[in-house]
């Protein structure tokens, strides 16, 4: 099982499903991270966390903790 966190910089993946729950899960969904959405990891902050992804044509930053909840396939 691969998560967004396993992607290297510059790699892309397709969302299969989401972990987490409640407000956070809803926020992730609302930001366009739904099954089938293509995500590209493009950047990491100076300490490796958070990361920046491109989803639905815009840039979104989230922490590794959140990235681990997003299950993807390459």
């Amino acid at each position: 099982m691969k998560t967004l966190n396993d992607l290297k910089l510059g790699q892309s993946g397709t969302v299969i499903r989401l972990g987490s729950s409640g407000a956070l899960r809803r926020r992730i969904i609302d930001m366009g991270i739904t099954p089938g959405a293509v995500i590209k990891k493009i950047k990491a902050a100076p300490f490796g966390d958070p990361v920046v992804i491109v989803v639905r044509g815009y840039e979104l930053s989230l922490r590794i903790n959140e990235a681990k909840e997003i299950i993807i396939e390459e």
Partner: protein
Amino acid sequence: MTQKSENVRTKNKISVVLAGNPNCGKTTLFNQLTGSKQYVGNWPGVTVEKKSGKVRNNLNKNIEAVDLPGIYSLSPYTPEEIVTRNCLLNDDPDVIIDIVDATNLERNLYLTTQLAELGRPIVIALNMCDLLEKNGDKIDVALLEAKIGIPIVPISASKNVGVDKLIEKVVQISEKSKYVPVKNIYSPVVNKTLCEIEEALEEIKQHKYHRKRWTAVKLFEGDRVTWAHYDFTQAQKEHINSHIEEINITKNIDREMIIADERYKYICSITDKVLTRRRPADYLSISDKIDNIVTNRFLAIPLFLAVMLLVFTITFGAPGTLLRDSADYFINDVVGSGVHSLLVSMGASEWSQSLVTDGIVAGVGSVISFLPQIMLLFTLLSLLEDSGYMSRAAFIMDKLLRYIGLSGRAFVPMLMGFGCTVPAVLATRTLENPKDKRLTILITPFMSCSAKMPVYLLIISYFFADSGPLVLFGIYLLGVAVAVLTALLFKSTILKGKNAPFVMELPPYRMPSPKSLWLHIWERLKDFLVRAGTVLLGASVLVWFLQSFDFSLNMVTPDESMLASIGKFIAPVFSLCGFGDWRASVSLVTGIAAKESVASTMAVLYSGTSILNSFSALSAFSFLVFVLLYTPCIAALSAIRREMGSAKWTALAIVYQLAVAWFASAFVFQIGTLVTNLF
């Protein structure tokens, strides 16, 4: 409500709300529509409460527009979402203007699909069309309009293009029916279930007619607010649930996700046809290129520090000093002596001469001479904000801030705190977690606000003329250090809790527009001038009066005045800190009204160079430490009270800040004295 749906409205006033994603140009459009001057920044979450204004138009219509906070969705989680949702549901606006950022079509239309379900007339203001074209992309507006079934007006809010057309469209739509049919966007399976819920609702007759699709969707999603809103009986609940459960959900998929997924599928089916991207997939825009450097793993932190150092150097180095010296010359040597000779030539009485020169010119004038320098600092911070750098700073610093129990998002209010504590405290509204929010509010006042600058510079000019920049830098750094320690202290005691998640959009860099920049500066300038004319003038005159007369209203020397008696009463509190002089105590008290007052009061009380006899270099420094850390001004306190939403927490903040200031400055003075005596 049901009967009203067919009514054609005849009333004169048209109520309009502006809804859209954060950072989509909503406030800019609001400013264009109403001619008002609202704060705009390039980071998500600038508008934190709703604001309203009259729309200027040539159609002789009375249009009232409300600017709502930017939101990504109408789910009831963040405070912004709740404000917007309540306004849309309860205020029943005539027309909703949905601002859609053309450069970010998919995600912006996600909110559109939710707004459309409210069954209200909507018009889409397709913003930033100019930017889209610059990027080489193209949207087939006519096709998009046909597919989505909502009228669209392409605009560029920042360049004021298409805004008149938008107003025309709003008026036109407002004259038609108040309710519009909702188009189905869901797959046949989900639509069938939603229709069944709608039928069930119709039997119960509890919902508002035009809003049945919205209600059905929310019930299907399991939206707790909607479920709680309706007073369903157990049987009704079961009836509705029986329909909802017709749709099997597989593992890891829930009903919220089904709806979101179908919304995005619908949107993609449209954007695939209407959006043409001319640039290749690996195209790097200018914004991307800048970002590759600014957020580079190795360069990001050095660059951030360099930016801060640059801001500091410009403000307090040669450019800022030059500005202050010219202002100082103008106020004291041109205006001050001009007014004085005028009074003398008019044969004014001695006390009125004293009031004007020793009271007003010395007090208000001393602070006004710092105005250009304060404006310079504010301009630089506004530039950072408008360009989009603030969200990058939040991104870069997130990990570090997490060590002290804060999220990167707390960084924006903290940086703004160097400008003014009031907007900084208001900006904490973007923090979703109440504990994070309280903690951020608590530490923001330690970021030395620009109003404290006159006090530092005044003291420095007398005691640290040679080491000025070093002392200033030390003071600012001390503020940050106390903020960090405070965060650590509270996070490990009363504000314990899990770190809030961090999911934040990084908007593209934008060239700060001179207009928006001017609005920021004007806002602060106006605020400063109002304070100079009211609080500072009043305080200066009051201080002059109290220090010129005794209790029997005889004109006396300051040492025998009323003020001296009052000051001497407070002064012993500060003797351990090294500034038990009554004039210092009085200055600090007036600082509660406005921080600049500390400087203006000192200028009135210490005439000539008498300040040199009352302070040593060490006690001057411990005085600066106290000014840096003690309770912020009354305007900031009321903002803190509002955002804390609790009198208890506000009181705690005040007591804590006073205690920290007293202990820190006493510590500095006592240790300093000890060290001096040893050597």
